[in-house]
């Protein structure tokens, strides 16, 4: 750049050669390209799913898809009602949350309010370890231990090899760390001043935790629950191994069922040929899954922003 060598505030007069500036421009383009790649990925997901999904919806009306109660793609008169898959996902997710919310919140409360530093140093890695176990391992664990030994053996619940209960339990264990860590972040962010004010008024620790800290951290806690829900809905391997492969309207916890993700996994690894409507149904279900988790994630991010800004 010609002209007098006047230094500008954010770009001081450089003593380096001109060529390094050109290299810098190329580097900038590269960096900007990398950042824009993330947008390309999202666009890619939407387009990749939309194409075959729209193809599917051309043959199966959207309302039939969303409200039908029979999923039978291989029959001579195929029906594509997605509700059986939705009930499968709903049952496993609800059971998982029923497990993860109390245990996750309990762990979070303990870690943030009660645990001495030494205990914390041990417990946080344990939770991180739980979070790091691959889901296929949880699925196998559910298949070989939870279903036969815990449910049938210990608790006497009559379940078959496949059940949404076993899948839900394994799923719940898997998301405990998700709920726990985000809730604990939220509770730790509550300023000490609030707790001290409560103590000064004569409340004991339990009351302070339940009546002061918990409500103050509620948006972060809600965010953790929603994030856990999103993870449970999107999880594949546990439900593929243990929930079952029959798409049916699930009405009880001990029944088998198939979830949206389980269906996608089963069909993609099965014998359906690409281009057929049975294969395109894969993308329709995938689109529904993407939309549902997107909504959950947006809600969770909004809630996190709210709790981070509050203090």
């Amino acid at each position: 750049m010609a002209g007098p060598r006047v230094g500008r505030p954010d770009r001081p007069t450089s003593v380096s050669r001109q060529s390094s500036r050109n290299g810098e421009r190329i580097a900038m383009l590269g960096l900007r390209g990398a950042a824009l790649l993330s947008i390309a990925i999202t666009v890619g997901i939407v387009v990749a799913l939309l194409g075959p999904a729209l193809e599917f919806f051309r043959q199966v009306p959207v309302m039939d898809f969303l409200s039908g109660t029979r999923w039978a793609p291989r029959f001579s008169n195929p029906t594509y009602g997605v509700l059986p898959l939705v009930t499968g996902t709903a049952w496993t997710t609800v059971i998982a949350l029923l497990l993860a919310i109390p245990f996750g919140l309990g762990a979070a409360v303990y870690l943030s309010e009660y645990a001495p530093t030494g205990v914390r140093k041990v417990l946080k890695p344990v939770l991180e370890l739980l979070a790091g176990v691959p889901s296929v391992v949880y699925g196998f664990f559910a298949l070989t231990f939870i279903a036969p030994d815990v449910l049938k053996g210990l608790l006497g619940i009559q379940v078959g090899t496949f059940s949404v209960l076993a899948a839900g339990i394994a799923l719940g264990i898997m998301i405990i760390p998700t709920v726990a860590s985000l809730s604990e972040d939220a509770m730790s962010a509550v300023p000490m001043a609030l707790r001290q004010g409560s103590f000064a008024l004569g409340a004991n620790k339990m009351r302070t935790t339940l009546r002061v800290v918990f409500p103050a951290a509620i948006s972060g806690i809600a965010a953790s629950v929603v994030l856990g829900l999103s993870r449970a809905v999107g999880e594949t391997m546990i439900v593929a191994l243990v929930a079952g492969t029959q798409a049916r309207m699930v009405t009880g916890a001990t029944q088998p069922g198939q979830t949206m993700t389980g269906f996608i996994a089963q069909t993609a690894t099965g014998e359906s040929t690409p281009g057929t409507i049975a294969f395109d149904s894969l993308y329709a279900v995938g689109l529904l899954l993407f939309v549902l988790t997107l909504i959950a994630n947006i809600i969770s991010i909004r809630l996190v922003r709210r709790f981070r800004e509050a203090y």
Partner: protein
Amino acid sequence: MVTIGAMVGTAVRPLRAGRHGDRSPASIAFLVLLWITLLFAIAALAALLITSFIDGVDRLDGNLFTQYTSQLFPDRGGARAAILGSLWVIGTTALLAIPLGVAAAVYLEEFAPKNRWTDVIEVNINNLAAVPSIVFGLLGLAVFIQTFGLPRSAPLVGGLVLALITLPTIIIVTRNAIKAVPPSIREAALGVGASKHQVLLHHVLPLALPGIMTGTIIGLAHALGETAPLLLIGMNAFITSPPAGILDASTALPTQIYIWADSPERGFVSRTSAGILVLLAFLLLMNGLAIFLRQRLERRW
């Protein structure tokens, strides 16, 4: 009214300690409940590790690493193809995701103007971090295999898909690491005449490197355990040899575990458990390395 109540309350506190203090029955019950919740999490993890160990320890011999899978003789086959395949896939993932992720993070943190577009990119990355991995698998199937025509079950495709999954994590971690470098370092460098790029390359990035490495290793460890996307791009076939190259058909350890787990034959259970133990060992190694690096190299400003 409240102040008087507070003063009275503090005054009679010692007398009321029995009913409302931290030793009250309700408080103790609450604490015990909290302990139970923690114990449950620990017990679940222990049960998982112990059952895997009991089921798989007899198969944990050299065979697992040196033999290939055999459908006819399940008790003699090994997981060599899967282990090598996983290494190929993760290697590809790392090669793709790390440069792109660090570059994108550097741009967003240092050079991006504070406008609408940047906000959109940031929101987008946060969303992508929470998309279910199977959706990425569908993306890989539709775009890489059906549109681009890449070979099914190739480590390249697996690496591409896993790189997409790991990219948001690496971006977020790198941004945090760069944010943690204090402005005084940058200002000092600028003060002696460095350009923005030089400040970045010679001062900021080297100091942010420990954080970047830790986060990247954790992200890759997570990718190592990913099964669903690899299944969707075709690594569900009965492949018994490691890939000859990046475009050769391959299998991976988690998908192999899934295939074995799905098989009803008894002989496969102990082998599946052994495979799980190998996978967990790898993960433990990677996470341990990340934690070790974090302890050793972290600098407190």
